[in-house]
């Protein structure tokens, strides 16, 4: 069968777009991020509880007192699990995506409803947008727009656009043909027919579409989190990566609260803005009995006044008490408030070294932003210059494919830990297994499984292509794709029950500290030479930050230092990485001055 080089065409199309339409992508990027920053600034200005009050008043106006109380409790809950900033980022992301989506979807839906041709052309495109897995266009999105909120918003728009267009088209087409004919028979222009008859009558359906757009947008925030979109999606993604069930639930429930609030409010807004809905509400309200207070709703004027009052109070508060305590006395530092962003993949040595550098750089006066990424997004983001550096690249073997692809746009800051080794490991209680060769014929004990890590990890590629065939294990064992944290969770579970398990591991790793494990020997030497763990930076980083570059280049850790730091972080639990680093630094005093020496010349 002839191999259609579809993928290559797409590749070259993406390359072409990247080189020829940079200006366009930059423009879109700056518009979208401008909108995001603007809305984010407004939303995060008021104190959380005041903001909760404002949204509660909106709920009161739209749905009555019980809804208002639930809203307040819900938003207070988000604040009390310390996910407020993330929730506001997510809300902003959804609002911006919804806004842009509607600007595109409603006119497109109107056009499609008025022309069969447009409708026929638009439909397959919408199907494509809705069913193409988001990850497929997310990485090109990162190439065009860089990591951060923009590709997340773009992906959300692409995903949420179809229901907006479809519902608008459907709503307009559903309007009784006789009514449209009546409008025409009285000499109405087609523009006025649209504005005075079709749109008002289609409004409930269009509002249902808007509701769908918002809901789909919220469901995309987790995927946006994978490319640095931050917000609750980022928290969820981090929680998944670290098998942190608690954080996952907290972030998840916050998303649910936002989703329910937005869903109910847009639903109610639909009836308020549509003339027919307004009448229906008035009718049912007139019939309702019982306590007036439950059904009373403030007039829009009252609601607006209350919101303005709350907003003013909010503004006042932030004026008087808002500004952050200045990190005074550090002005003489090297960093001088300069911003540095570090990206990482949730591998243990990566987390350890990343938070170590975050702490050290902050001590030297830098403002450090640390974000977790999916591996492809991390390298692409760095190549595009949005991420300054990352500390966890295994070269020359394991991460060779990334290095080959992006080496022109990256700087190698050298290896800070060597040699590493890759291996398969089994618990020590499996006494008779010490070498790869011993695995042969024992598949039934391990249920035929090797519990693997991320399929994008280099080690997994080596296992699949070299090790398993090399030792004749590829028939017997199935290598299961997963993630490092899920592999470690499975190891922990099996270890506690003393069940047989075999996993890919690497040294250094804290698991060797915590569990008694056997590294399986590799008599054929198929794993190859041990990699060094390299720090990679974006091109131009060392020119702009010569001192930091110098520090990174001369940075070295011993196995004892690294495993003890990893163990400390493991002990503290996720979300407290930096505190763990601080504790570790207290026990290892002096290392900061060695790795990141302070400026010699004393300040004024």
């Amino acid at each position, binding site marked *: 069968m002839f191999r259609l080089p579809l993928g290559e065409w797409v590749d070259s199309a993406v390359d072409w777009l990247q080189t020829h339409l940079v200006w366009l992508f930059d423009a879109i990027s700056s518009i979208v991020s401008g909108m995001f920053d603007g809305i984010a600034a407004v939303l995060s200005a008021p104190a959380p509880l005041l903001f909760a009050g404002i949204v509660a008043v909106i709920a009161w106006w739209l749905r009555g007192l019980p809804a208002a109380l639930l809203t307040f409790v819900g938003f207070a809950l988000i604040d009390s699990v310390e996910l407020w900033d993330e929730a506001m980022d997510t809300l902003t992301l959804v609002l911006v995506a919804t806004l842009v989506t509607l600007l595109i979807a409603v006119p497109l839906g109107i056009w499609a409803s008025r022309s069969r041709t447009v409708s026929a052309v638009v439909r397959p495109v919408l199907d494509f947008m809705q069913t193409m897995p988001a990850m497929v266009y997310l990485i090109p999105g990162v190439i065009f727009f860089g990591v951060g909120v923009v590709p997340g918003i773009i992906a959300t728009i692409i995903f949420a656009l179809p229901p907006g267009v479809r519902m608008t088209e459907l709503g307009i087409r559903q309007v*009784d043909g*006789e*009514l449209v*004919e*009546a*409008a*025409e*028979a*009285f*000499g*109405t*222009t087609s523009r*006025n027919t649209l504005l005075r*008859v079709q749109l*008002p*009558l289609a409004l409930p359906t269009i509002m249902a579409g808007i509701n769908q757009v918002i809901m789909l947008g919220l469901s995309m925030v987790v995927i946006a989190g994978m490319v640095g979109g931050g917000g609750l999606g980022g928290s969820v993604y981090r929680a998944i990566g670290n098998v942190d069930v608690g954080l996952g639930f907290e972030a998840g429930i916050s998303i649910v609260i936002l989703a329910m609030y937005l869903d109910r409010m847009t639903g109610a807004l639909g009836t308020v803005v*549509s*003339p*027919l809905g307004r*009448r229906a509400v008035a009718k049912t309200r007139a019939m309702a009995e019982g306590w007036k207070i439950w059904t009373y709703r403030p007039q829009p004027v009252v609601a607006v006044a209350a919101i303005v009052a709350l907003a003013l109070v909010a503004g006042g508060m932030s004026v008087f008490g808002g500004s952050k305590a200045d990190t005074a006395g550090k002005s003489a530092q090297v960093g001088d408030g300069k911003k540095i962003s570090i990206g990482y993949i949730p591998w243990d040595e990566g987390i350890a070294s990343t938070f170590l550098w975050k702490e050290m750089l902050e001590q030297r006066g830098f403002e450090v932003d640390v974000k977790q990424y999916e591996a492809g997004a991390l390298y692409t983001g760095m190549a595009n210059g949005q991420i300054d550096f990352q500390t966890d690249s295994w070269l020359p073997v394991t991460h060779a494919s990334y290095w080959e692809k992006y080496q022109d746009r990256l700087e190698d800051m050298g290896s800070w830990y060597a040699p590493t080794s890759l291996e398969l490991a089994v618990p020590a209680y499996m006494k008779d297994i010490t070498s790869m060769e011993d695995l042969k014929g024992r598949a039934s004990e391990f249920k035929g499984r090797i519990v693997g890590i991320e399929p994008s990890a280099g080690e997994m590629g080596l296992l699949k292509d070299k090790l398993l065939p090399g030792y004749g294990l590829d028939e017997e064992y199935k290598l299961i794709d997963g993630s490092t944290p899920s592999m470690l969770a499975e190891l922990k579970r099996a270890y506690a029950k003393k069940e047989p398990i075999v996993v890919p591991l690497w040294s250094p790793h804290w698991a060797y500290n915590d569990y008694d494990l056997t590294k399986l020997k590799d008599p054929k030497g198929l794993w190859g030479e041990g990699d060094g763990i390299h720090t990679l930076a974006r091109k131009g980083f060392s020119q702009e930050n010569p001192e930091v570059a110098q520090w990174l280049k001369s940075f070295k850790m011993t196995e004892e230092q690294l495993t003890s730091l990893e163990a400390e972080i493991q002990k503290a639990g996720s979300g407290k990485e930096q505190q763990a680093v601080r504790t570790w630094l207290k026990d290892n005093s002096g290392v900061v001055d060695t790795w990141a020496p302070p400026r010699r010349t004393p300040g004024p």
Partner: protein
Amino acid sequence: MSRLQAEHLYKVFGRRPDEAVRKLESGADRDELRAEGTTAAVIDASFTVEPGQIFVVMGLSGSGKSTLLRMLNGLLDPTAGRVLFDGQDLTALSPRELRHVRSTKISMVFQHFALFPHRSVLENAAYGLEVQGVSREEREVRAAEALRLTGLEGWEKSWPDELSGGMQQRVGLARALATDADLLLMDESFSALDPLIRRDMQDQLLELQKRLKKTIVFITHDLNEAMRLGDRIAVMRDGKIVQLGSAEDILVTPANDYVASFTQDVDRSRVLTAGAIMAEPHTVMGGKAADGTELRTPQDVLAAAPAAVAESTPIIDLFTPCSQSPDPVAVTDAKGKLVGVVPSSRLLAVLGEPMTPAEAPRDAEPAAAAGADVKKVAGV
């Protein structure tokens, strides 16, 4: 000056409509075209509607009557032919001019009312004026006046869905009247209503028409309705007008079996008029009345008759007088002069089998008058 003229109107849906029209003109059949995938909805329709006349187009569904109506105000573009209104060729107008004609000169009333559910009754009635750009105060005054005409005073603030079907259609009628358009197109406007309400609406339309003298084209599939309302009636079948004439023409001399089969169900006693079935006065002169009086002069006949009616009186009104006396009912003209008599035997005879043209009484001319007097019937 004739107000509305349709000249050789064709409407063909499908591919290559012009070619289809040529084929139809050279005698091709509707079925032949259907085999080619084109549908001839209206074939060679020509008629004239005089000012102040109610012109009814009658036909079953699929006969092309609604398509024909929509060509009259340009909602559908004729494939061939012309529509002249006030001497102006509507088919030659630009879209903008056509919209202007629609908003000022032609109104339309729809089968399912087509009221805007998001507008109040008053706003609905004022819609046409709103499109014309009339100021709010003026259009509200004029819309309220139109609502008053249709008997909906006091309902201005209501919403369409709060009204019964008949009242909703009164709003539809008010909306059409509010613009003061001369031509009213009514598309099966009363078909969706209950029979009793439908009669009320028909009466009200006739009542209004007496005062307003609009030119009305009324579409219906109900021959009774057509006969009640129509000054002239066009019967359509398969896109063609098969007969054009007054109610009595159609009833008494159906053009073909198709039309005749329609007329079977018609209540003849309400359509036929005294003038249409009356006998010459001399047929009774020289005889004797029941009480023995000799009938020598028209005055004698009038004196003996149980009632004197106008020529336009539907014969249903003659039964009661005929049952009270063996003497014939007198038919008089506007000045009270005796023009004919209706003996009870004759009354019974016309209600029997449809008469062959040879037996038919002299052709009734005053069809227009028939419409004007139906009010009397409704009172029964």
